[in-house]
């Protein structure tokens, strides 16, 4: 035995080294594959073919708002109820539920901002094969075929989208578990259904994990049995689909044949891997399809675990593709087929028919709302680290930024600031005087974010816990007791954020007298809200945990949204409904854009992670979440200096700009890498601050119209097929094109400048380049390529100060980039930067800036608004200009002033000196 122990020694070492080296990447074994997720396996076992569903046309009812129709599964005779809605704004809603479910099936609440307004559907024709409905003026039809059941949306003679054309509509109806071992009827049924197109009935035993499944010692009890749903969508003429974040993958979604489907299930994934379809922290079940003619959106409103299969007949003709050819009569048209599978709930799909990308964004915004308009300072730079150790540390870092003349607006405190991971409290030794600390930041016009996670330490001396427990606000386990799991504080409870009373109570905890030590410049970060449960299945909550009457299974992906919702509400309430909140969340769902910002979670200090930050945020932007960022520098591990600098340069041009680092990494405040690198980082951050007026204006638009801030090129150049797969460069709004340098030792990048007949100006050199070309741009470490579109006007603030608040009243410099036709247009948006008065009292300035016929003018875009700003126009830089003989400023009072100017003939840059006119009034500058 002794010998055995001795001999085990080296073995143990070997095992440990394997384990430790294994920690450098995700432990895939912790997370399910489709094969390990019983419903996904059952559903995926179904192959395309003839659908067993038939529409019972005699049950058709058409009212003003909707059409209803029963569907029957000819194999098991279970009936479904189909509801079709034509929604305002060119959308169709398809809802399918059981006609008579044993008990109600979950329908996702609180995601849609209202009951979507409908428009009347009109019946164009009907026979025994089906019905044809009109979808409005654009010669769009909706065809309901009876046998087999399928839906086709047509425009003219063209099919835009088909549902159930591959017969993958599958609805596991709710049933009673029969414990009798022998049940001839059931067995018979099973045989039937094997041949049929629905997963096995499994009413007798726990076949295919219908009534129970075990994963890594966690048993999921399923008192409701099988309940999954599935539906297929075919998109003729489509080769590019996007969206369904969150995945660490390319912007263009890949086909999933031969691999796992894309998974949507909010999970805390430790050291996630890149370029695969594994689930991450958030889930937005919205997919966009795009080709040169049209953009379509599919919004699958379901909050349960969801898997999305994508196949394409052009992505290497597989057996599957051949079968499709057969089904459709062998066309050479490219086609993308998509199949959604969810574990429970109902089928509730919104088909957003575009036709332009902009239209789809508006359509989706009309359903789930728009990006919250953040306080201006939240668009500035954030300095975070796990953890700033104590008040002295915070003061020293704050001082460090001033000493090195680097601006920042927010310093963040991670979990260590609390008293034993009890959120809403402070560590009494490290942060004994939080108000002094916050006042110190107020004195510098800076702010702080503290972390408040949704796991609550089970500790009878902790007020928050006691109140939640006594009010019965905790999520319950399947047996009705408070659900408990392991997280940062040790044993923790999880408040039931799906309960509106719970949310109201939670919001009240952010009141200044409740959250002791908090002040008005302190905002909130919700982490771990998937929720993360260290000892739970797949590091999250047990699916049979109960939120009121519903299982976590039904609403899992909603939990994070509710946490952020309640927190944002708390921040609004504490200010008496005046201030805009700022809340960062890791988990999210459709609609989360309404509550604040998201970040891409715990990334790694590697070049590929810098690279992936672009498609990850682009994907989120396409589905409503504009306020997205990745941890600058990378969370895990320590970045090389070059990587850190490149990350700052990239992050400065991404919406949420925050540096963050793991507890175990060496410090990396910007000045710790020598004067040269400090200068490089300072310059990157200053570029961000100078551009804040433009960022703010983009967010104003995102808030009002749902247009993404950070956009793939194809959004603005929808007919340029060269842009469809690009995700190494992006647009900010329409007017700035950014191509980050994401290669180590990169000496140059090849940027694609879109737009035939357009021109682009390098913002660093003012060099003009023609559009519709691939341009090789040599780069140094000093900056990344950024271009301004000819035809645009971008306002900047050239006086970069130590925080955005300090720059509030500073004057503007307008960068007018002329198109080849000597035209340009832009906007200027100004408000107080932090309250909701812009909305409630129309206190803002929104101006149209346009350059045409050699005159630049500013006109009011919002006549009903009023706001007074001391800011003025300091300088006007016109790119691509010719030299005028004189420049005259005309103001509303009738005065005319000659402006001095400088002209750089080599770059054709005209600089008008000090117009000095107030930024909120009408004015014109005429060049002669």
């Amino acid at each position: 035995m002794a010998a055995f122990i001795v001999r085990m020694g080296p073995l143990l070492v070997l095992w440990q080294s394997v384990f430790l080296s294994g920690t450098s990447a995700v432990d895939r074994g912790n997370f399910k594959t489709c094969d390990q997720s019983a419903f996904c396996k059952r559903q995926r076992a179904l192959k395309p073919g003839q659908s067993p569903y038939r529409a019972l046309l005699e049950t058709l009812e058409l009212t003003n708002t909707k059409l209803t129709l029963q569907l029957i599964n000819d194999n098991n005779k279970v009936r479904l109820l189909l509801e079709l809605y034509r929604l305002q704004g060119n959308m169709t809603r398809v809802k399918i539920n059981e006609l008579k479910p044993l008990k109600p099936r979950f329908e996702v609440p609180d995601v849609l901002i209202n009951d979507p307004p409908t428009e009347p559907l009109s019946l164009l024709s009907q026979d025994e094969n089906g019905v044809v409905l009109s979808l409005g003026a654009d010669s769009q039809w909706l065809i309901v075929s009876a046998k087999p059941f399928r839906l086709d949306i047509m425009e003219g003679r063209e099919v835009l989208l088909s549902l159930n054309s591959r017969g993958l509509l599958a609805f596991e109806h709710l049933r009673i578990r029969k414990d009798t071992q022998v049940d001839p009827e059931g067995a018979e049924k099973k045989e039937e259904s094997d041949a049929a197109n629905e997963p096995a009935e499994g009413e007798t035993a726990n076949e295919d994990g219908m009534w129970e499944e075990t994963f890594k010692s966690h048993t999921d009890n399923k008192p409701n049995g099988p309940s999954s749903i599935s539906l297929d969508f075919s998109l003729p003429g489509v080769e590019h689909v996007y969206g369904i974040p969150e995945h660490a993958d390319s912007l263009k979604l890949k086909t999933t044949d031969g691999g796992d489907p894309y998974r949507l299930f909010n999970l805390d994934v430790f050291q996630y891997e890149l370029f695969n379809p594994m689930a991450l922290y958030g889930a937005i079940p919205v997919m966009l399809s795009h080709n040169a003619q049209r953009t379509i959106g599919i919004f699958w409103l379901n909050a349960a675990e969801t898997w999305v299969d994508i196949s394409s007949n052009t992505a290497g003709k597989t057996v599957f593709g051949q079968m499709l050819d057969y089904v459709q009569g062998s066309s050479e048209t490219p086609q993308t087929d998509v199949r959604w599978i969810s574990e429970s709930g109902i089928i509730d799909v919104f088909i957003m028919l575009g036709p332009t990308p902009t239209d789809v964004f508006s359509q989706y915004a009309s359903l789930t709302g728009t990006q919250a308009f953040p306080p201006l300072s939240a668009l500035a730079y954030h300095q975070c680290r796990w953890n700033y150790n104590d008040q002295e540390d915070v003061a020293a870092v704050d001082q460090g930024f001033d000493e090195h003349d680097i601006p920042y607006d927010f310093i963040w405190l991670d979990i260590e600031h609390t008293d034993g991971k009890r959120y809403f409290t402070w560590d009494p030794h490290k942060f004994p005087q939080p108000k002094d600390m916050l006042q110190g930041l107020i004195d510098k016009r800076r702010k702080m974010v503290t972390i408040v996670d949704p796991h609550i330490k089970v500790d009878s001396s902790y007020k928050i816990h006691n109140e939640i427990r006594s009010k019965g606000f905790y999520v319950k386990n399947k047996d009705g007791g408070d659900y408990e799991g392991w997280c940062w504080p040790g044993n923790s409870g999880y408040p039931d954020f799906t309960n509106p009373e719970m949310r109201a109570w939670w919001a009240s905890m952010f009141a200044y007298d409740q959250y002791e030590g908090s002040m008005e410049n302190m905002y909130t970060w919700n982490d771990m809200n998937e929720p993360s449960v260290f000892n739970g299945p797949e590091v999250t909550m047990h699916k049979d945990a109960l939120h009121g009457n519903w299982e976590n299974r039904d609403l899992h992906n909603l939990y994070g949204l509710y946490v952020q919702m309640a927190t944002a509400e708390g921040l609004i309430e504490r200010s008496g409904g005046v201030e805009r909140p700022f809340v960062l969340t890791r988990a999210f769902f459709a609609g989360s854009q309404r509550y604040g910002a998201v970040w891409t979670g715990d990334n790694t200090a590697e070049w590929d992670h810098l690279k992936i930050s672009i498609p990850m945020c682009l994907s989120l932007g396409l589905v409503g979440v504009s306020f997205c960022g990745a941890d600058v520098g990378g969370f895990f591990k320590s970045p090389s200096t070059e990587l850190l600098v490149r990350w700052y340069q990239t992050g400065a041009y991404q919406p949420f700009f925050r540096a963050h680092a793991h507890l175990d990494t060496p410090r990396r405040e910007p000045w710790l890498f020598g004067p040269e690198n400090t200068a490089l980082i300072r310059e990157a951050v200053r570029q961000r601050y100078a551009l804040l007026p433009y960022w703010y204006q983009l967010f104003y638009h995102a808030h009002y119209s749902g247009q993404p801030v950070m956009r793939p090129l194809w959004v603005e150049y929808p007919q340029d097929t060269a842009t469809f797969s690009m995700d190494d460069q992006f647009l900010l709004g329409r007017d700035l094109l950014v191509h980050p340098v994401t290669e180590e030792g990169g000496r140059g990048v090849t940027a694609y400048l879109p737009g035939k007949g357009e021109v682009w100006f390098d913002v660093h050199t003012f060099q003009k380049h023609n559009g519709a070309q691939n341009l090789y741009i040599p780069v140094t470490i000093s900056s990344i390529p950024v271009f301004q579109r000819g035809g645009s006007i971008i306002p900047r603030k050239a006086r970069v100060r130590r925080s955005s608040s300090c720059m509030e009243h500073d004057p503007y410099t307008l960068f007018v980039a002329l198109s080849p036709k000597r035209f340009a247009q832009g906007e200027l948006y100004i408000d107080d930067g932090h309250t909701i008065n812009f909305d409630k009292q129309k206190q803002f300035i929104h101006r149209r800036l346009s350059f045409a016929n050699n005159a630049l003018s500013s006109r009011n875009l919002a006549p009903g608004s009023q706001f007074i700003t001391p800011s003025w126009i300091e300088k006007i830089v016109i790119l691509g200009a010719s030299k005028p003989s004189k420049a005259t400023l005309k103001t509303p009072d009738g005065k005319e002033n000659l402006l001095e100017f400088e002209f750089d003939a080599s770059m054709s840059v005209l600089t008008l000196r000090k117009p000095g006119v107030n930024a909120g009034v009408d004015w014109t500058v005429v060049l002669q």
Partner: protein
Amino acid sequence: MSCALLLLLMSLALAMGTGAAVEIQRPRGVPLSKRQFYEENKPFTCLDGSSTIPFDRVNDDYCDCMDGSDEPGTAACPNGSFHCTNAGFRPAFIPSSRINDGICDCCDTTDEYNSGATCQNTCREMGRKERESLQIMAEITKEGFMLKQQLIHEAKRGQEDKQGKLTELQGSKKGLEGKVEALRTVKETEEDPEKKAKERHLKSWEEKKELIRMEKDKTRMAEAFLELDDDADGYVSVAELQSHLELDPDSNGSLTETETQGLLGGADKVDTSAFETVWSGIKDKYLSEGLSDPPAPVETPQEEETRDFVADHNSDHYPEDYAGEEEDVEDDEEDDDHEEEEEEEKVPPTVQTPEKREDDEVSMPPYDTETQSLIDAAQKARDDFDEAERALREVDDQMKNLEKEIGFDFGPSAEFSYLYSQCYELSTSEYIYRLCPFNRVSQKPKFGGSETNLGLWGQWDDPEDNLYSVMKYDHGQGCWQGPNRSTTVKLTCGKETVVTSTSEPSRCEYLMEFTTPAVCQEPASLDKVLHGHTEL
């Protein structure tokens, strides 16, 4: 240090000198030293010479000069700087971007002339406080520097002592080396007869043992003969021997008649005397019938199996067994290449073991008195030699330690040598930190738990070579997924030698503040600066 301090005090004196005087007219934000470049009503030339502008464009809130020199008093230029006079305190330059940003940067409030910020003039108060603290610092420095002289003096003496000790040790080392050599000769001389006497004794014992062994063998042979001679006819026949399968020469499991005959030297049967020859051939294999309970006949095939099992066990199931074990590497190699051989060699010893034991049962008789006295003499010589050698080693160690200590860089005047072999502790709420200069830094939880090594003496680690104010201790205990712990110790001037603070700014990178008189610099002209500002 002294230089910085001097400058500080000089500028302070300057501020006090001019503070009360009449404000000299100059554009906002321009220091006195540059006033001459800003002449009212004359065109202004940017200080970098890049362009010339009308004077009314100085401080007109628009940046005309590349170097920002036309806007010393506004925030218009990104690279400009603003001068605050700070009467009562010391003047300062701040970046232009801090003008009118709503934050009071200059203690005289001059940076916030148009922002609405309400700033209090705190210059006098700050000046007073700074003077006070500088006064205190100066006193500390003064006293510290005196202590340092003492330290240098002591260090010098200590160094001399050590040098003297070293020389002394070098002398005694020589003596000891001679002694060791002499004793070695004595030892060797004494050991020679001892060895011979011991060999003699052993040889006679071996002879005696051989006799006993032969006698035993004869007895065994006789017993075997009787055992084999089943029919008691005085002969051992082929048939009688054939039952002893263990004697099978080709180990194939059957002892044929021919084979048996071969064993009997070709005869069909042998008598007692002829058996002697036969016996010498078979005795190694022969198993007494009385003892042959173990299944001798089936042994061979079983052995095969056992071997396979063992080999399997070693090479396949537990390949890790040998990885990193201290056992000979040879074992490993044999395992790989000569498995069969090894096993074949390994099996017989188990059979031989009883014989060996028998041998050992009879012990060697004690040495005779003559041999014993030779042995005793040799032992004494050995002990004496060992003793001398140990003494030499000790001296060697002492010398090495001294040389190491003398070799340390204790500063330009060895002023840090007093820290050597000392330890200083600081107790915080959770830990006791311990700094043993030039040795190690450690941390021990206050309430139980083992000590953690935060780094071993590395080197002086100053940004500039000639300073001695930062110590680096590294290669401490490793961190999970991180570097080895290390500690930076910052030394500041103080009257006492004490650890004043510790922190862990970055995971596993510790920072310790340590005061010692040894870093106090000569406060040479302090008095002059403090009291002689009139001459400026």
